[in-house]
């Protein structure tokens, strides 16, 4: 923890230099008092997000847990080599050191980065299309009774169909496999977003609507100033869930479509071809890459969410 203190001092100096780096954010941890006491003599100044994260106990707990997990994995994987006894499941997985070696090889392969690029592109294509169609559709379902009466029943029948069940139909619908994958991805996110938007818009407190109406709000004002901001938290929840589903669907789609000339590549195909080619560490590299990609995507959504809903940061 000594190095932590040093790091903190450095950071403090840095953020004094660049005060713009101070972003107020939700307090993720209440019990960071131990490290804070040293600061309290400092004239009142809000701590930067990074500074706060690094001085919180839960941050370091997370770091220790991750390191502990990797060490545990290493020991279990190597257990057979040392003692001849195989640890179930984990014993079959290559140890993290081997994965790292495989990764360092892969990093110089343009195919690996191309896989990232292709998968991310597909995820965002499907996801953005789902947002563009899903948010207005969901709001219309919530706001207009006739629209709901007509479109909600077919929506509810289509919703339980898993995205992967759409794969054959999608191949028939679209000329290229790239479009087919994008369509299946779109469906995965679309239903999650719509159902969240409908739920969010319908659960807006009636008192807000009444208050706005009493104050003379027009239909458009009701929609743009009350219903839309009131639904925003649910829109972001739907987006986060939808983003998770698109990653699932894209990878499955890529595994199915294979490395053909048209819809090939992608992280899903990367894993599958690594598996077929017999390099297990590379499979793990692919898996972890997906974990990182998913984490980055959901962080992006959280970031945009916090930016567009300043009032939500208080809680």
């Amino acid at each position, binding site marked *: 923890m000594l190095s932590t203190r040093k790091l903190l001092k450095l950071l403090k100096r840095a953020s004094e230099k660049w005060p713009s780096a101070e972003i107020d954010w939700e307090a993720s941890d209440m019990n960071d008092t131990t490290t804070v006491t040293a600061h309290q003599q400092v004239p009142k100044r809000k701590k930067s997000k990074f500074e706060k994260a690094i001085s919180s106990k839960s941050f370091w707990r997370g770091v220790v847990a991750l390191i502990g997990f990797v060490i545990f994995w290493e020991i279990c994987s190597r257990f057979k080599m040392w003692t001849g006894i195989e640890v179930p499941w984990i014993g079959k997985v290559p140890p993290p050191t081997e994965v790292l070696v495989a990764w360092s090889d892969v990093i110089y392969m343009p195919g690996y980065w191309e896989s990232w690029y292709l998968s991310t592109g597909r995820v965002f294509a499907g996801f953005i299309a789902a947002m563009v169609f899903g948010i207005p559709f969901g709001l219309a379902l919530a706001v207009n009774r006739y629209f709901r009466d007509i479109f909600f029943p077919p929506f509810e029948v289509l919703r339980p169909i898993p995205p992967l069940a759409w794969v054959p139909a999608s191949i028939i619908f679209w000329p290229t496999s790239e479009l087919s994958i994008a369509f299946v991805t779109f469906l995965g996110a679309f239903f999650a977003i719509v159902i969240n938007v409908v739920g969010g818009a319908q659960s807006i*407190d009636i*008192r*807000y609507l*009444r*208050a*706005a*109406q*009493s*104050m*003379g*709000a*027009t239909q458009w*004002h009701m929609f743009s*100033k*009350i219903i839309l*901001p*009131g639904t*925003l938290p649910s829109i972001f929840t739907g987006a986060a869930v939808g983003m998770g589903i698109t990653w699932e669907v894209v990878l499955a789609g890529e595994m199915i479509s294979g490395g053909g000339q048209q819809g090939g590549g992608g992280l899903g195909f990367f894993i599958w071809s690594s598996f077929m080619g017999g390099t297990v560490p590379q499979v793990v590299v692919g898996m972890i890459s997906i974990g990182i990609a998913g984490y980055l995507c959901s962080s992006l959504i959280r970031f945009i969410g916090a930016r567009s*809903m*300043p*009032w939500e940061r*208080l*809680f």
Partner: protein
Amino acid sequence: MTQDTNAKGAISIRNVTKIYDPDGVNVMAVDDCSLEIAAGEVCMVVGPSGCGKTTLLNAIAGFHSITSGEILLDGDVLCGPDKPKADQGADRMVVFQHGALFPWKTLAENVAYGPIVQEVMSKSEAMDKAHHMLAEAGIADMGNKYPGEVSSGMARRAEIVRALINDPKVLLLDEPYRAMDALTKSIMHESLLEVYDRTKVTIFFITHDLEEAIFLGDRVVVMTTRPAKMKKYLEVDIPRPRDFRTLSSNRFRSLVEETKDAVHEEAVKAFEAGEREMA
């Protein structure tokens, strides 16, 4: 009562009945209720829980329709036999039970909302006025905070300011200070009285708290248990301005006792009726 001759906001509630019809079972919420509220009067309505006080308020505000009878504002029919549901309008502003400031707007933006959507002021004018009025209400530096960032007392004050900026004839308050501690409540009361002295707006105030009712009101109306009728009218002859010392005066105590008897009787009835419905 001495009233300004040009004061606006007289409400006449004439023989109003409201029957709810959930699942084909008629529930009479308000039964032949009549009440005259003078312009600029503070009318406090007390009665047991679920007795139909809020139903009456909703009818005046235009949230619900009435089954029969009529309600007039300054002689104009708000709702009656030809028009069971009143239009919602900025002449009757409601302050809700648990507060209804828009959480996604700052306090000043909340206050400025009415003039902006009614297009009576430009956005910057409205914001200036909002800040000014918040300052008058004693929460000047809270204007740029979100409702989630301020205490419930401040939020409620801002909500009353949000209502007042529309220059309403009537302020309809539905237990606005419920679930507040006694100290906050008494601060709220003084600030409401201060607002009233300045604006002389007609106030229709629903509460469970008898001391609150007598401290604030020109008149206290006790309602019976469901279906709601007027049981008792009580003129509060304590001179204004009132402050916390009023609370310990003999006249205040005897008025509280008088009201308590009437309300307690109804509360017992309501409780017994509840027991019967359960059985």
